[in-house]
């Protein structure tokens, strides 16, 4: 699949922003006043900035309000509801913390739940696609939640949660990468089922329908950069999880924490690029790809 920068930025930063909001909502850290203002500013910059980036991906962002209408069937619509409801709940909760030193506990829990819901619904947009076997797995929402919760814990300074969660997220990502290459074959869609010609013999794409590129090939048959996949996976695991865990185990300082956060974000960006760039769409079979 085409790794559009807007979608990589969206999933990375919104994931981190909503992850941080989850921890703030349950009162970890239990902050008020200016400190709370700083935490909420960072989380809103990331969550809202990511959502804004995602609208650049749309052909007609001016019609985005219509995306709230189909929550009964569409995970994208459900994501829109969760994101807006979560941001509103956390805005009220944050305002009470910042300006009135008052922790509205229930509202915080609600905001945390909606933040998790946003991450889950984002993941389900990809997970639901049977046409992309690498994503069509229960590990996809698990990975999105693990990334957000661990990155959120890191941003929230919850070291005792961040260390196990980062380790867990790194292990889960490693497992997904180790098994991901076989998902397409396991799904059972081949050029034989795609064309229905398998009963006659072995099939080879002889001539494509068009000599130039088209939307389908640009969007769903993206193959550039797969040759560096293993190296990028190693870099992503090292920067995203290994280095932050080591830094968190060292005596705390704001500098090591900052390096851990920057390193984690770089690792997540690389992982998200691979998430899209490595995913194979069954449509590519018609073009003899895969």
């Amino acid at each position: 699949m085409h790794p559009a920068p807007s979608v990589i930025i969206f999933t990375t930063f919104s994931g981190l922003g909503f992850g941080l909001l989850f921890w703030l909502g349950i009162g970890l850290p239990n902050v008020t006043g200016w400190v709370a203002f700083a935490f909420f500013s960072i989380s809103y910059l990331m969550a809202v900035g990511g959502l804004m980036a995602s609208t650049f991906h749309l052909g007609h962002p001016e019609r985005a309000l219509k995306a709230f209408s189909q929550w009964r069937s569409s995970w994208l619509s459900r994501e829109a509801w969760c994101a807006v409801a979560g941001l509103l709940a956390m805005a009220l909760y944050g305002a009470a913390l910042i300006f009135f030193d008052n922790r509205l506990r229930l509202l915080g829990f609600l905001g945390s739940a909606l933040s998790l819901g946003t991450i889950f619904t984002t993941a389900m947009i990809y997970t639901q696609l049977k046409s992309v076997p690498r994503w069509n797995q229960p590990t996809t929402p698990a990975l999105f939640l693990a990334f957000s919760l661990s990155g959120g814990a890191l941003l929230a300074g919850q070291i005792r949660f961040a260390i196990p969660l980062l380790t867990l997220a790194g292990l889960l990502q490693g497992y997904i990468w180790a098994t991901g290459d076989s998902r397409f074959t396991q799904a059972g869609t081949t050029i034989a089922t795609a064309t229905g010609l398998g009963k006659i013999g072995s099939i080879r794409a002889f001539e494509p329908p068009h000599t130039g590129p088209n939307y389908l090939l640009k969007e769903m048959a993206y193959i550039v950069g797969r040759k560096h996949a293993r190296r990028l996976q190693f870099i992503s695991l090292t920067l995203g999880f290994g280095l932050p865990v080591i830094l968190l185990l060292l005596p705390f300082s704001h500098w090591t924490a900052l390096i851990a956060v920057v390193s984690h974000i770089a690792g997540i960006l690389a992982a998200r690029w691979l998430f899209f760039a490595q995913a194979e769409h069954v449509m590519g079979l018609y073009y003899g790809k895969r």
Partner: protein
Amino acid sequence: MTQLPPPSSVKLGLVIDLDTCVGCHACVISCKGWNTENYGVPLSDQDPYGADPSGTFLNRVHSYEVQPPDATAQLIHFPKSCLHCDDAPCVTVCPTGASYKRAEDGIVLVNEDACIGCGLCAWACPYGAREMDAAAKVMKKCTLCVDRIYNNNLDPQDQVPACVRTCPSGARHFGDLGDETSAVSLLVAERGGFDLMPEQGTKPTNKYLPPRLKDAPQDIDILAPFLAPIATDPKGFLGWLDRSLSILPGGNP
């Protein structure tokens, strides 16, 4: 609404005969011609006369070489457009309700005024039947020529999809696949019509007819027995040449 309607009794669709398709791409051109000036925004082209042309098409013809285990290879032309699935994943993923399936005849359409151009329906379709128009930034797909098949201003023979009307080899058939007694349903039953990617669970309406079995090539040269057999060991000049070349390094004496 992007919830799927209950399955309709009328299921309009196409039956494509892979045996008779000659791969002329006339259906591709007639589709583009009709649909660029009728339902919805035009099907735009980018850099059409330049070095890197591309454009939006609702129907495309692939060609496959199929090699049977014990016969000569076959070249099979394979037109592909929206299959108007009963369980259309492109419809349910749409966040705005722009992508919908008609309850009355099962045609899957896009209401372009409500399309935000997110592209998720094209991702959800396993067949690559949807293309985002690069100029209008809305999703385009086969409409089954909904503006022809119900259009009483056209002559009766023209009230079929443009691709069917234009096909010079009669490889494309249009009709109601929900009616077991319709001509297209009988054709599917007779020829063993099949679904594309049945394992994806989309329950496509359109069906494909497999190429008919090919005759095994037979020795039908009735004059062959009367011809003199060809000499297996050449004599004279050719014989000398054969022996001389064979004893050179790399030769095969």
